[in-house]
């Protein structure tokens, strides 16, 4: 809090001056059609902090100091106009269209703004309007489908989902492939981005690829998202606004599962089974659950042996999210100010899951002479209370207990789990192997609090008109704590002879991370020899992060319901971890321009890192680029109405990925079972390390083309890149017999290629009717060229249950799914074992396809008419596969669709053959043995091939319908702006027929082992609601 106080004190220092004023109003219309133009910026000349924008009817009204001489009217795509005031109180003007791209400003590394023409690589910007149209709770999710080259994965759909942000596919086998996040100039993290209130974001610039990011050194390899928060717009008067949104979330679809057979085993009915190998449903009344003794207060439960419609779906509730932000914003000639307070409250689809979040932001800046000092600061706090995820004696997630509930179970009758007279009570519950999901919610909780304080202090000193010094200090501190507990459950041995006791535990975690960054650089602009310009940046940067966490766990608690580590029996588990990471670097960047149509850029940065040994820890990152604006350079292309802008770029850069801390040595760790009394024990970690390990090297060559058509109403951006990655830092998998499970070293080569196409434009702009369209397409491919001699694949992540996993394989796309498959004859028919009728499996695993989409299409469009506006976004990903883990698990329980595909009897596998030693002969009569059950539970479900599914998905991600209430109605109640809207997210998902289980975007981990998911996440959801934005 002390830090907050300092920031608040600073704000008081930022004063506001008052002087004599006058009122000017008028209408701005187009010179061609005479239609009013909304959104035109009107500012006072020489004092651009005073200004406004025209409303929906093209009208504006502005209070200006009496000293003001002229107004400047500007609008994207229009020529800006300067109009002398001359004492007038009404000024109506007409403005003309102009080439849009000419002066478009883009944000580049370090937050430095450059004209688009100067930039030698590809960037794309997402504005606050695009982000907040959907009233998202996290900005990342709102970017899906909007930026070429960007893949946003929402990992799950809990109350506080995490996002994975990947630019241009995967490049590294072992380490992070997520884009670097820079918030208000300081290097941050994906979670810091997730913690931002999206309402506070002014814009996000996506710097694609390593070249654009080269000035960020070792963190540049995955591209950068430069996020700027709102600072109070120039020329804005004092605004107080409220943004409120309510959305409700519902399960979009459940896995498709069979509803023909119920509880049982090997064809016989069983009243306590979680498996569904019973007889076919017949509607008769049957006993379910334990046989209650005569003197027991409950009768034995009887239910019809028939499917209960939506019994699992109805377990989930409608989630509610309330998201409110109050903001105020103001500025004058020398000061800018923005403050907001956000409050989000959400109930999840899982009963009792809740999440609360508060955000506070205060940004301010003050200009004193040639120096501008700015502060951006935010405080974030959240609280999450969700069901635990190691439920029951098998430590399973909640969804597992639902999936193990048969179709004939009236699940909703078990809600009253704590009442001993209810069938939901542990002793009375029907299932002898898995617990009641309602019980799970009440007896397993995971509660977390986290806090983040971000503060950035910026100083910008215009030493001369051509020379600026910028200094920046940033702090980003996160701290939090969590408690995860499970209650004990004992069972009445007569009623529940098979149930295993559930032990209790409590886990306490605390953590903190402090990150400090500092940058200082000079930027100079020079022009010489008439036609030449030089823009130079020289500077240095420093980065330091300290992490500390502690974990305590106590088991088998003595007092029920008292969740404190002191309550455990036996020795509690205690673990404390620390990590420190430091680096610093110097950089220079020079852009030489000729006649404002050719630009040559050189940049370099040298980094020193703490994570490598001395003498081995200095790295130089060079980049070179060229930009050529053909429409200005070539006479015949100039002033062309059709092709109004054409720019070609070419660049090359080399960057290195750093190693995380403490990876250069092999270490011992204390064994979890020790100590026993005075005997302690340490073991050598199974990972071996190459003592000469270095950074991995990425060299990227990129070609870009930016075209503007029809006075830049339509623009086409295209880029092609090729990245060679060498000296990959890889945990190779040596033979287990080497005594190590992994060997961390630098090996191999990856080659990554991709193209990005983005087509955007204003398709219709006629009178009040406007239609904007943005289409983007991304293709990328990463091939493993080499690992090292004798080793042609590396496991990135493997699954325990069956032979399946994600690999890097020489000559193949990375990441690659591999699994065991059936043995097939040359015609592709399955070879069976004539003794059993069972298909033969090949011992070696086969390539099944890549797990990241080679093709991503995004489409977003906005239609507006007067105050109405409809926006929507679609996203289509295809060409990849995923492992449908849930279906595999449901094979054993007999709940899968496959398990009923042969009517639960022995059958001849269609299109199968027998190898008689000389040839393959069609199998017409040999049936699979045990087709009633064990073929499915022990043979079919061991073949990974059956569960690797097409991960194609077409998602209707967003729809918003909004209406700006005309000012004439709201001004009467002293309001400036009222926008109301309907919003919908993930409204529809179209999946291939074969994918019947889950959303392929879900993942078990945030790591590179993308493509495995299914039962750890609850089912996919859709949400819809309303939002309202009011400004006073």
């Amino acid at each position, binding site marked *: 809090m002390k830090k907050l106080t300092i920031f608040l004190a600073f704000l008081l220092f930022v004063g506001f001056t008052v002087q004599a004023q006058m009122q000017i109003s008028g209408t701005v219309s187009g010179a061609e059609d005479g239609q009013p133009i909304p959104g035109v910026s009107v500012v006072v000349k020489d004092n651009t902090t005073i200004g406004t924008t025209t409303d929906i009817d093209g009208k504006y009204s502005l209070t200006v100091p009496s000293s003001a001489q002229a107004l400047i009217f500007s609008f994207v795509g229009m020529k800006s106009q300067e109009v002398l005031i001359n004492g007038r109180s009404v000024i109506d003007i007409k403005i003309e269209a102009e080439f849009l791209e000419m002066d478009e400003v883009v944000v580049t590394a370090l937050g430095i703004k450059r004209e688009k023409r100067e930039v030698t690589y590809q960037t794309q910007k997402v504005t606050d309007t695009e982000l907040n149209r959907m009233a998202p709770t996290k900005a990342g999710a709102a970017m899906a489908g909007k930026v070429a080259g960007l893949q946003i994965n929402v990992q799950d759909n809990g109350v506080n989902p995490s996002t994975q942000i990947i630019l241009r596919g995967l490049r590294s086998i072992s380490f992070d492939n997520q884009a670097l996040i820079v918030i208000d100039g300081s290097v941050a993290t994906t979670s810091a981005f997730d913690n931002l209130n999206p309402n506070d974001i002014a814009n996000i610039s996506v710097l694609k690829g390593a070249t654009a990011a080269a000035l960020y050194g070792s963190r540049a390899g995955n591209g950068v998202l430069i996020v700027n928060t709102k600072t109070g717009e120039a020329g804005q008067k004092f605004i107080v606004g409220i943004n409120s949104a309510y959305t409700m979330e519902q399960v979009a679809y459940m896995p498709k599962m069979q509803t023909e057979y119920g509880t049982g085993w090997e064809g016989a009915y069983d009243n306590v089974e979680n498996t569904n190998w019973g007889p076919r449903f017949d509607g008769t009344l049957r006993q379910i659950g334990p046989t209650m003794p005569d003197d027991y207060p409950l009768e034995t439960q009887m239910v019809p042996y028939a499917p209960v419609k939506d019994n699992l779906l109805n377990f989930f509730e409608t989630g509610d999210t309330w998201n409110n932000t109050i903001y105020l914003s103001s500025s004058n000639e020398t000061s800018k100010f923005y403050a907001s307070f956000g409050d989000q409250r959400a109930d999840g689809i899982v009963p009792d899951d809740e999440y609360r979040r508060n955000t506070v932001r205060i940004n301010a800046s003050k200009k004193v002479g040639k120096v501008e000092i700015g502060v951006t600061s935010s405080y974030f706090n959240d609280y999450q209370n969700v069901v635990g995820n190691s439920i029951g004696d098998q430590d399973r997630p909640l969804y597992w207990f639902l999936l193990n509930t048969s179709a004939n179970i009236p699940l909703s009758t078990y809600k009253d789990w704590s009442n001993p007279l209810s069938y939901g009570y542990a002793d009375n519950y029907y299932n002898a192997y898995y617990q009641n999901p309602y019980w799970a919610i009440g007896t397993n909780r995971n509660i977390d609090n986290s806090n983040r304080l971000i503060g950035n202090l910026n100083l910008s000193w215009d030493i001369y008109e051509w020379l600026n010094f910028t200094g920046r200090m940033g702090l980003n501190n996160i701290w939090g704590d969590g408690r995860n507990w499970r209650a004990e459950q004992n069972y009445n041995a007569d009623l529940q002879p098979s149930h295993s006791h559930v032990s209790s535990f409590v886990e306490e975690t605390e953590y903190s991370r402090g990150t400090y960054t500092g940058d200082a650089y000079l930027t100079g602009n020079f022009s010489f020899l008439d036609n030449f310009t030089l823009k130079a940046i020289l500077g*240095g940067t420093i980065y330091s992060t300290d992490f500390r966490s502690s974990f305590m766990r106590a088991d088998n608690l003595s007092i029920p319901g008292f969740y404190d580590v002191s309550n455990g029996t036996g020795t509690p588990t205690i673990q404390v971890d620390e990590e420190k990471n430091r680096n610093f670097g110097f950089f220079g960047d020079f852009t030489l321009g000729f006649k404002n149509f050719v630009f040559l850029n050189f940049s370099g940065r040298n980094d020193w890192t703490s994570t490598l040994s001395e003498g081995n*820890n200095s790295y130089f990152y060079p980049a070179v680029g060229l930009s050529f604006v053909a429409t200005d350079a070539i006479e015949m292309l100039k002033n062309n109405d059709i092709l109004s802008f054409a720019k070609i770029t070419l660049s090359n850069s080399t960057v290195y990925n750093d190693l995380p801390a403490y990876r250069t040595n092999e270490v011992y760790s204390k064994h979890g079972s020790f100590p026993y009394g005075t005997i302690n024990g340490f073991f050598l970690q199974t990972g071996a390390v190459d003592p000469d390990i270095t950074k991995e090297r990425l060299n990227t060559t990129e070609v870009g083309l930016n075209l503007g058509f029809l006075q830049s109403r339509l623009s086409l951006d295209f880029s092609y890149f090729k990245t060679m990655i060498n000296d990959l830092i890889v945990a190779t998998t040596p*033979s287990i017999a080497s005594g190590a499970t992994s060997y961390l070293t630098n090996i191999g080569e990856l080659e990554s290629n991709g193209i990005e196409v983005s087509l955007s434009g204003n398709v219709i702009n006629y009178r009040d009717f406007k239609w904007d369209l943005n289409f983007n397409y991304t293709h990328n491919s990463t091939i493993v060229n080499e690992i090292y001699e004798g080793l042609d694949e590396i496991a990135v992540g493997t699954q325990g249950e069956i032979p399946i996993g994600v690999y890097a394989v020489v000559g193949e796309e990375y990441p690659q799914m591999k699994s065991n498959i059936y043995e097939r004859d040359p015609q592709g028919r399955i070879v069976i074992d004539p003794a059993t009728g069972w298909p033969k499996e090949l011992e070696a695993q086969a390539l099944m396809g890549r797990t990241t989409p080679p093709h991503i299409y995004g489409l977003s469009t906005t239609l507006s008419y007067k105050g109405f506006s409809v926006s929507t976004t679609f996203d289509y990903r295809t060409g990849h596969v995923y492992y449908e883990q849930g279906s595999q698990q449901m094979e054993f329980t007999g709940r899968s669709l496959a398990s009923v595909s042969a009517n639960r009897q022995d059958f001849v596998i269609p299109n199968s053959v027998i190898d008689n030693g000389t040839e393959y002969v069609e199998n017409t009569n040999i049936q699979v043995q045990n087709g009633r059950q064990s073929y499915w539970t022990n043979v079919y479900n061991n073949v990974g091939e059956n569960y690797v599914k097409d991960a194609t998905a077409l998602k209707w991600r967003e729809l918003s319908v909004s209406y700006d209430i005309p000012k004439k109605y709201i001004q009467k109640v002293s309001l400036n702006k009222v926008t109301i809207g309907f919003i919908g997210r993930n409204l529809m998902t179209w999946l291939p027929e074969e994918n019947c289980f889950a959303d392929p975007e879900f993942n078990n981990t945030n790591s590179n082992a993308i493509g495995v998911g299914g039962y750890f996440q609850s089912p996919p959801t859709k949400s819809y609601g309303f939002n309202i934005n009011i400004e006073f």
Partner: protein
Amino acid sequence: MKNFLKYTTLLLVVLLMASCEDFLDVNEDPNNPVSVTPELVLPVAQSYTANVMYTDRYINCLGNMMMYNWSQSDGYSWYYDEFNYAVNASFYSRIFTYSYQNTLKQYNILDNLDPKYDYYKAISKIMKAYHFQLLVDLYGDIPYSEALKRGELATPKYDDANMIYANLMTELTTAIELIKDAENPEAVKNDIMFAGVMTDWIKFANTVKMRMIVRVSDMSTPPFTIATEIATINAEGSGFITADVAVNPGYLQEEGKQNPMWQSFGEEVSGTQTMSGKATCATDYVLDYLAGTNDPRIDKIYEEPKDGHLGVPQGLLDYDTPIYDAFIPDKVSNIGPGILKGFDMDAIIFTLAESKFNLAEAAEKSLISDDPKTLYEQGVTASFETLGLTSANAAAYLTAGLTTNLIGYDASSNPIEAIITQKWIAVNGLTAEQSWFDYSRTGFPAGLDNSLLAPAGVDRPVRLFYPTSEYSANGANVPTQPDAFTAKIFWAN
């Protein structure tokens, strides 16, 4: 431009001051040490030995499954692959994995120490020999001479099983010499097998040697000269173990600290029976055999339910015909109190009974001069005592069975069959893999049932397959998978 340079220089100076070497010198891991003393390494290695033997679905469990000792109760789908004899690259591959990546890796650290740690070094060699022999007996050719080199050699070659046996014998001799010849050695601390008593280690080394000698005793050209090795043992003079060899760090009734077999098949820390404990029970065959020979060990090896002993045939699919719920855990004979004694029981990695039976076999084959019958009866007695019965109980059993084939030594038509059959009972539930090896070698005990799900036309598997990971990570060296039913380990051919 002049100013520009001036400010740049100033900036560089400021930053350089901030970035001295100390700033970057933070890469020493504060959480994990880079080196530790041997007494912190040894007990972990020994606990790994206990784990690889006794954890659910490791070596002992495999032996019990292959030897038709254990089966499965109603309500569990635990042992389907075992009942199918589904030996494939994932079947029990954890034995291979755990042995190299944990057990052998950890012992190997001690083999590379200074001479003052010669005792630790000797222990390392003895325990490596113990584990490598198990691996050879399960897999045949394995990585040995090039194994355990970690980052230095990612793809160790596979050595000939025969050669490994010969080398292990030499290593055991070297280990004994190291102990005897050590100059001012550091005493061994935290030894959770023999409490640092080095003569016990020598006896154990001799006992492992005898296990190897007996294993190859039917070969026409064994990997080493048996007579020479026996002469070496005799010349050394310390003899063999006199009690069960066990690992016990002082197991506690706490999460992760219980005896591994108890943790797997006994009770959870809270005192309730584990799932595997409920799922695992005796076969009908083993109970019939013990009951039929009036063997009092029946109630120790298997728990007697209130309605009397009941076993389940391996591979039964329909548990409910003709009697519904006949085989639920409460009604079948789960693993008994002579095997599951408590959370703090010893993890016996070499039974005295087995040592006696090995010596008896050697004596019967005239490899050593002792009386085979005496050793045999000592073996039976040791088995009774290990299970919690008395020597008097053993004497009574032997007396009653004096004229019974396979109990009375002199009454047995084939003394080797009697030794091996009694060893089968003695290691039932405790290092049962040894009787699986014996079965491959001798075909005893005769008449053992097969699983109902066993493939037609075969007896039982004689080895394991190499794990899948070897085909991806060490493909150039790993041999093609031999036939699991016919390609016997070299000593059984």
